[in-house]
């Protein structure tokens, strides 16, 4: 520090090249100009970026510390948001983790990857499937489900960097019955015609937007030659390499929010 201060004093008598620029950012301690090689900086940032980040820029609202409390806590294995919770009265099981959010929250790529598929998912929402590879070489497939169709920013074949915004969280919608009125009516166009819908999931008067995240280890291929949804493979009706994304999400949560779960 003494040398830095000395260098600053030595330079303080000279008129600066750019009066708006702090002197220390122009010169090193020996008075020579700094030079930052762009490729070296990319490598620097790659080496220092986290393996995994959280798929949302903000914390889910069904966090342990938020309004939905323990009933919908995505980190726990005791509620409908968890991997393996019953669906259709137990005929099948939940194939991912559900992260509830405020309306249209941005979803980001958890690490670098290539988009394998963008297609309809359920109840007017879409899904984006990405083959990921981390800095250390871990490879797997993530299906980002129940995303808002109109907000999708990526296409099949796109090569993505970690943190790229993919889309916004979506809203599951179902048709209004004839004559039915809803406090939460949503009007969207289907085949060019405006139709009235209502949200499938409303909890305590709050419309639930969400990201449904599925994790495939890649043991059945890092491509979609074998489709991710497989009705005959009970109870998840998914490909055999489906696994619980909880640990991956916790890793990302710590990187993004600095909190260990």
């Amino acid at each position, binding site marked *: 520090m003494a040398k830095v201060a000395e260098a600053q004093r030595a330079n303080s008598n000279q008129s600066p090249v750019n009066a708006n620029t702090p002197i220390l950012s122009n010169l090193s301690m020996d008075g020579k100009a700094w030079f930052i090689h762009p490729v070296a900086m990319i490598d620097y940032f790659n080496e220092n970026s986290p393996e995994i980040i959280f798929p949302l820029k903000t914390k889910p609202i069904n966090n342990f510390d938020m309004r939905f409390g323990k009933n919908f806590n995505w980190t726990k294995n005791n509620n409908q948001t968890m991997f393996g919770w019953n669906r*259709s009265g137990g005929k099948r099981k939940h194939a991912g983790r559900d992260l509830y959010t405020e309306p249209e929250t941005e979803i980001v790529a958890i690490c670098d990857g290539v988009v394998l598929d963008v297609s309809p998912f359920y109840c007017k929402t879409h899904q984006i499937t990405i083959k990921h590879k981390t800095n250390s070489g871990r490879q797997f497939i993530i299906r980002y489900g129940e995303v808002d169709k109109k907000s999708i920013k990526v296409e099949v074949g796109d090569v993505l960097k970690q943190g790229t915004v993919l889309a916004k969280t979506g809203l599951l919608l179902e*048709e209004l*019955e004839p004559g039915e009125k809803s406090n939460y009516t949503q009007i969207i166009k289907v085949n*060019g*015609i405006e139709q009235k819908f209502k949200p499938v999931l409303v909890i305590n008067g709050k419309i639930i937007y969400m990201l*449904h995240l599925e994790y495939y280890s890649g043991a059945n291929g890092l491509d979609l030659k074998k489709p991710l949804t497989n009705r005959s493979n009970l109870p998840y009706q998914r490909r055999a390499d489906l696994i619980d994304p909880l640990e991956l999400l916790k890793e990302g949560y710590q990187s993004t929010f600095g909190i260990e779960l």
Partner: protein
Amino acid sequence: MKKFLFKSLLIILLPYFVYASDGDSGKKTYYSLKKELLRGKAEEREKILNLVGDFATNNRQILILASCKFKPFVGNQEDINNQLNKIDFLENYGEYLSQNNLSFNEISRLYFLDKSSLSNECNEFNKLPIIQIKNNLAIPIRKQLIFFQRLPKQDEKNINNYNNNVKCLKYQQVDMETTHTCYYKNMTILDVYNAMYYNSSYVFRKKIKAGENFSAFYEDYGVDVEYKWSGKNKLEITQYFQGGVTYYTFIYQNDKTKLIKVHSPD
């Protein structure tokens, strides 16, 4: 005593029937887009579909197409001809009429966009005539003449009954699943199904016959569908989407059809 029992029954039943149709007795007529006549590449056909929609409704001379409102043009045959001459109709679109066994003389009415519909999305139709020709509507748009065909009378009756003869119970939500139960008076299973067939949201793409099981995969939605009959009075339709399952159960009993619809997201 009878009066008391009747009143008590009403009080018990009232909370269960939460909504019913508003009883609009107006007889609407309906038109379906003739997709098979669209020209151009798949992308262009998709654009046209998104622009004009696949379904139009006419209610007391107000035409609703692509969620825009159109009113009849007031004038005699000469006035109609003058309007069509403005877009060189015969020269530009005459071949479309002859290919569909229609003639210029069969044009009976024009509709134009109502000023109240001048939103950005409806602007594309501004000053564009919608042409009534026999049982068709024809729209000259994007260098094509697009046709809508009026539905068969039985299908129109089904849609009107579907909207007017319905009573629904309050929907139920358990965990992620929602269940809706509605009763359609004086309608068979096929009547209700055929009314829903024209709403593309339901993904009911096949015209069906009672008792015939059926299954298919619709690639654009990534959905497997299964139709299973139990006798002729019960039909179960299951739609396996990539991210959830929708179940429809139709039961015909006592001159009405009960429809139970369950949405079960992943």
